[in-house]
């Protein structure tokens, strides 16, 4: 009706949003692709060096360890968080007081700062005052006591329990709402057919929420690429880069040595890896759907 006036309104309204979004989300991507070809310390002239940064990344054993650790995080999330959350979702489906309380308790770490979560777990693993080692003492398992975060062979695995503990609540709620969305008739039909308990879970309930499980797996993958805070707080990627993730590798190689060109190249590499991963997982799930 007021075509001209509304066109001005449309672009006046969208303009600031688009500028803000482009400037802080897209420009950095282009910037990092560009600076990835330079040797630049932040001050002075940037020197064009072609693909040298990328060659250095691919030769760097720390990069490969970081990539491997990211894969470990994905596997731990997929095979730790998802089954645990599914189990809890099935167990907590009624809502009496205790179950509601447990659901809130499991979700609580999701709303707290990862800094505090990481620090709490740092104290749990603490070599002198850590309650984990005190607990092992009390149980007479002194031999099992370890330097949980400073032993380079186990540091990355010590990070898995806090990882699972802090995110399981998210998957719990996702699965619980999927379970609630199963139509009541299906439960009735199962009752008439005399299917219940574990058999019902495996043959009816789980297939019904298969799509949600797939979404959860994709979330695990993208979530693992986002992990930075927990590792940075608990180990800073150490000892000797043993628990480095791609994001901490990028941080440590940029801001401790002022190599912005090299760091930009790592940024671009992470971007490519995550697009590949997300693309592959989307492709796999859509292919499956096409067949079904």
């Amino acid at each position, binding site marked *: 009706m007021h075509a001209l006036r509304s066109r001005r309104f449309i672009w006046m309204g969208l303009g600031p949003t688009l500028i803000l979004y482009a400037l*802080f*989300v897209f420009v950095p*991507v282009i*910037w990092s692709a560009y600076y990835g070809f330079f040797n630049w310390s932040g001050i002075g002239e940037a020197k064009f060096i072609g693909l040298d940064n990328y060659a250095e990344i691919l030769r760097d054993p720390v990069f490969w360890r970081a990539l491997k650790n990211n894969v470990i995080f994905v596997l731990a999330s997929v095979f730790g968080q998802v089954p645990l959350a599914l189990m809890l979702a099935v167990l907590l489906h009624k809502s009496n007081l205790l179950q509601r309380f447990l659901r809130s308790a499991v979700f609580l770490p999701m709303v*707290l700062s990862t800094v505090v979560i990481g620090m709490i777990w740092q104290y749990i693993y603490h070599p002198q005052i850590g309650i984990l080692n005190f607990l092992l003492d009390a149980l007479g398992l002194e031999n099992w006591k370890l330097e949980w975060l400073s032993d380079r062979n186990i540091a990355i695995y010590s990070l898995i329990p806090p990882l699972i503990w802090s995110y399981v609540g998210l998957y719990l709620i996702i699965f619980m709402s999927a379970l609630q969305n199963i139509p009541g008739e299906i439960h009735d039909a199962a009752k008439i057919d005399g299917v219940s308990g574990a058999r019902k879970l495996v043959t009816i309930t789980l297939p019904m929420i298969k799509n949600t499980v797939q979404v959860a797996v994709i979330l695990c993958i993208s979530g693992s690429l986002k992990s930075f*805070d927990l590792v940075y707080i608990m180990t800073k990627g150490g000892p000797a880069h043993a628990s480095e993730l791609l994001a901490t590798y990028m941080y440590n190689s*940029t801001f401790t040595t002022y190599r912005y060109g090299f760091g930009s190249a790592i940024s671009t590499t992470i971007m490519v890896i995550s697009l590949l991963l997300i693309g592959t997982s989307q492709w796999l799930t859509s292919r499956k759907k096409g067949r079904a």
Partner: protein
Amino acid sequence: MNTPTPAIGRTADPSPRISLRKAGTAIFWTVLALYGILTLYPFLWLLISAFKTNTDFYNRPFGLPESWQWDNFSRAWESSRLGSAFGNSLIVTIGSLVLTLFVAALSSFILARFQFKGKGGVLAFFVVGMLIPIHSTLVPLFILMKQMSLLNTYWALVLPYTAFALPTAIFVLTAYLTSIPRELEEASFIDGTGLWGLFFRIMLPISLPALSTVTILSFLHAWNDFSFALVFINKTALKTLPLAIANFADGYQTDYGLTLAAMTLSVIPTIVLYLLFQEQMMKGMTAGAVKG
């Protein structure tokens, strides 16, 4: 192994089955209760330990403090600059919250209620942006902020928090606003309300439920963020809560009670909000994760 007794028992005599079921229920509740304790214990430990002296950490790792050190909290508050960190967190959180809500609501109103050329492109732009892993932008954003002389200002946090909150906010709000019947705005046009009036007086109030979801997500994201603050802020006076707590822990590592008291103080606001709005927080965060 394969004795037929259970089968016979099942048909002839119901009592073993009942007691089996009772045992099952008992195991079920024990496992749930144990999991609940396990999941809450770290927080309980934090709260209790915040009152301890250093000797208590060695002598009574699982017990209550020998004497409750209330002054841990006052000392922590004074020595950690928590007051200024609270203020900074509040400023950047409210700043990005107000900006996100206004900009996202206006854009969503336009995307949901107007037909125009380029609408599909705008939506695709936001979808593509969601694929960019947030941490891979740290280095290029740092370079960008440096070039714009925004490092060590509140804007260095407010603007990226807003930009990265935009896609989820726009999807939540657009989906909500699309579901509102057309008659509403036709009626208001007849009344002579302009487009801005329609937006402020009708669309904003009507989308309150969606706005509250966006508020929760943006609040938690900005309040808990660590990585952006770590990279963009190094002036002590501007440090936000997670950054201040992490730095405080580095400085006071041997006074355990003091560090834990500071950590406890820093999580109190979030825990209080969680107790008040937990249902909304759970729903909001899962919606944000699945869409994001």
